[in-house]
């Protein structure tokens, strides 16, 4: 079907302002938070309700048109890059929190509801939605489900999959299926668990039933300053070994600290090698002792200064520095690329050393933000996209860092997903049989391969080692 005809039929379903088909405007959809690769869709459609979403997808199914779902477009692995998918389906107008069940602590949100709205809707009742990605003021629940998003507080509370009780999924056929539901541990295979983290390759999530948790009675946030990343990493291992599970345990290295200090004047010493941001929460009784114990561990590992946030304002400033650190680092160079890998917690010093060596080898500046408590690393590579050679080195450095993670017994992604960015690295972690099994599983939901094609699992027909897009770019 010609794009014009398709646009007309889609407008009949979603209203005139729900279709974007002017080429010059479609440009804004050519990338998400991952900007190294770009491709604009031929058409963007924005349904207003879950029912309209399924009507849209049914029409696309009739015409056998592939599509890519998109929420707020804050993803960091290029999961919304339209590859062989002419149509982008945006859930940004599905913005309703449909029901709140305080007594059973659950809430039904449409896919376009912004993560932070969920907590805002229930915080008066001392509840919260635990997954808190740094982009939580903009990213959507649909996107969080697709990427199985994490956040600093996942150390204690778990990631998105631990907080989604059920999803409503529009299959690529347009058929609507409801998986999971209000009660936990339903019999049969865990299909919700399969959908969460599938990066839009199984269909479009339109609604999710979310678990709410009790807001902690008390919170202690403290910041420990270290001379080196090694010392801070040792402290991380020792804190966990002591039996305390902090709500969050974050590390920032020197480059990041300097950027944050420049942007927010949070009061970090310019010569510090690393800081740990530790948050403890729970019943007020005993929290002070835990904070003391953590402080003692930090001091034993050479922390030269420990600051405890005295009130909510000080706590907010510390977290602002952490949550907006990516943007602050962004001020140091025209562009940055945030990597996402995982290593066993005990290997943090090694991976940070490997990253430093990579930076030196490729003449790049790389800062480190780490969800240290669960070994999830976020090296931030600075570059200038106008320098083609530098772009090539950024891509190579990214590869090397991920390969190093895998070599240390870790993984390719903690929370950003595979998208297009890391699809070429999947064989580092999985055998051809593993990948084939994944392809077959996807086919159960999407036999024609029309939902977000060429994402997550490399195409079986291709020799993935040599044919990754980024490697082509680098050559």
């Amino acid at each position: 079907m010609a794009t014009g005809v398709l646009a007309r039929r889609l407008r009949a379903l979603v209203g005139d302002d729900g279709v974007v088909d002017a080429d010059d405007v479609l440009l804004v959809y050519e990338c998400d938070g991952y900007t190294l690769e770009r491709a604009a869709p031929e058409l963007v459609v924005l349904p207003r309700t879950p029912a309209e979403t399924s009507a849209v997808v049914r029409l696309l199914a009739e015409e056998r048109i592939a599509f890519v779902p998109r929420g707020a477009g804050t993803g960091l692995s290029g999961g919304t890059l339209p590859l062989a998918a002419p149509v982008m389906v945006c859930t940004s107008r599905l913005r309703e929190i449909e029901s709140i069940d305080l007594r059973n602590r659950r809430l039904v949100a449409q896919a376009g509801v912004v993560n932070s709205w969920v907590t805002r809707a229930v915080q008066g009742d001392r509840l919260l939605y635990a997954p808190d990605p740094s982009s939580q003021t903009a990213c959507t629940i649909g996107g969080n489900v697709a990427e199985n998003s994490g956040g600093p507080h996942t150390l204690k509370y778990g990631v998105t999959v631990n907080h989604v009780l059920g999803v409503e999924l529009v299959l690529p056929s347009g058929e609507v299926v409801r998986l999971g539901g209000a009660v936990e541990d339903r019999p049969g295979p865990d299909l919700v668990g399969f959908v969460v983290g599938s990066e839009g390759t199984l269909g479009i999530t339109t609604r999710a039933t979310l678990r709410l948790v009790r807001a902690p009675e008390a919170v202690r946030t403290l910041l420990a300053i270290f001379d080196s990343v090694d010392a801070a990493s040792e402290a991380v291992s020792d804190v966990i070994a002591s039996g305390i599970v902090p709500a969050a345990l974050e590390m920032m290295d020197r480059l990041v600290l300097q950027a944050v200090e420049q942007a927010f004047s949070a009061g970090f010493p310019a010569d510090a090698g690393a800081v740990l941001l530790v948050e403890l929460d729970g019943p007020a009784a005993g929290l002070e002792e835990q904070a003391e114990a953590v402080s003692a561990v930090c001091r034993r590992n050479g922390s030269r200064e420990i600051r405890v946030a005295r009130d909510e304002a000080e706590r907010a400033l510390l977290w602002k520095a952490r949550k907006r650190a990516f943007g602050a680092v962004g001020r140091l160079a025209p562009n940055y690329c945030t990597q996402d890998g995982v290593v066993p917690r005990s290997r943090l010093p090694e991976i940070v050393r490997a990253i430093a060596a990579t930076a030196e080898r490729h003449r790049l500046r790389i800062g480190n933000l780490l969800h240290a408590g669960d070994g999830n690393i976020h090296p931030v590579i600075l570059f200038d996209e106008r320098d083609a050679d530098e772009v090539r080195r950024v891509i190579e450095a990214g590869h090397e860092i991920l390969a190093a993670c895998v070599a240390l017994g870790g993984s390719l992604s903690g929370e950003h997903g595979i998208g297009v960015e890391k699809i070429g690295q999947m064989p580092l972690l999985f055998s051809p049989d593993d990948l084939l099994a994944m392809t077959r599983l996807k086919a159960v939901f999407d036999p024609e391969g029309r939902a977000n094609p060429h994402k997550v699992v490399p195409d079986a027909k291709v020799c993935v080692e040599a044919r990754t897009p980024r490697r082509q770019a680098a050559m």
Partner: protein
Amino acid sequence: MAETSRENGAGDGVSVCPPEPRGTQRRFVDTAPLLACVHCGLCQDACPTYVETGREADSPRGRIHLVRALEEGRIEPTTEVTRHLDACLGCLACETACPSGVPYGTVIGATRPWIEDRRPAAVRAARRALASLLVHPVARRIAFAPLRAVGGASLLARAARRLHGTRAGSLLAFAAAVPPARGTPALPGVVEPVGTPRGTALFLPGCVAETLFPETARATVGLLAAAGVRVRVAHGSGCCGALPHHLGRADDARARLRALLRSVGGERVDWILPSAAGCGAHLREAGHLLAEEPAAGALAAKTIDPLVLLARLGLPEPRRRIAETVAVHDPCHLVHGQGVREEPRALLRAVCEKPLVPLRESELCCGSAGTYNLTEPDMAARLLERKIDAVVASGAQVVAAANPGCLVQVRSGALSRGIDVRVEHPLDLLARAHLD
């Protein structure tokens, strides 16, 4: 830059990185502020138009993307493209949200005149007429005279309620929201402080604010005197250029700012006080807007919103207290343009009997935005409905809005919906407590 085609059969036309910028020749904006945008998207949910339409071309990140593509010559200013740039309120909520410090106001400010020059002649003429009408002292009085004569009339309000949701209804509500002419006497040239003098301020009565809200101007001057400020009133200082600036009329805006600088730049005062938040935000950028004039930086540095100055100096104990429940709406040019959030609340807390009532999305634009409600009436009406929903949900009896545009807009919304809420300038509320 090379285009890579994916050999796994996917994605024709996937380009790795954007195309090279076109040489060194610049169309209308420097690339540095554009490159500061890292495309993270954190601005999107702060943007009123994105929140309403869900389309990324109506978000700050999308607009920056379009501006960059225009600058690089990838696209041209077609109707489709300019529609999304025109829809920007200029509220700068995105600057508050941006972690990378993108100077969005500078970007859109540089883009608007370039687009303005490329509009069809008839459209350009209409926008020029609007700008001149609002800033010309005589034309403005004549234009507003009928509104001032009938302003507040209950008949109008009733008609507006009946036509709620239509363009005619919006216009009637707007007229009904304009305060009626009360024959307020003109401000004296100088007002001496009460008690020990703590400094001298130059008060710019402004253009629209002076015509529509002379009572608020009197309240401002009276409160400042009560706080120990000697106030000189810069009669005839004219428009600061903020309105033409927002309409993309850069030369006009610069000429007006320069004229203002010439008339008041030499004054030996401690503070310069604008009468509207929009003027304040504009004047505080004077050093950047008139980089070639050394006095512009000094003017910018001395510019301070009257509410901020009052909060800083402190007011005496109020003579009486406000009994109603009050919610605070944050005008964009105060909260995002100047980072002022706490001061109006602190001042009001000191005069209100009851605690302030929280207002949902208090920092989201009400749709007034300078001349936006005249140039983009549909989106302005949507945002107004949203604001009034929040006002109703708050249950407040009074909404305090520290900007003339917001006052008329929110008041017109309340009238159209027939809700029993008063919309007042915080300075008028303070005057009630301190002066009457």
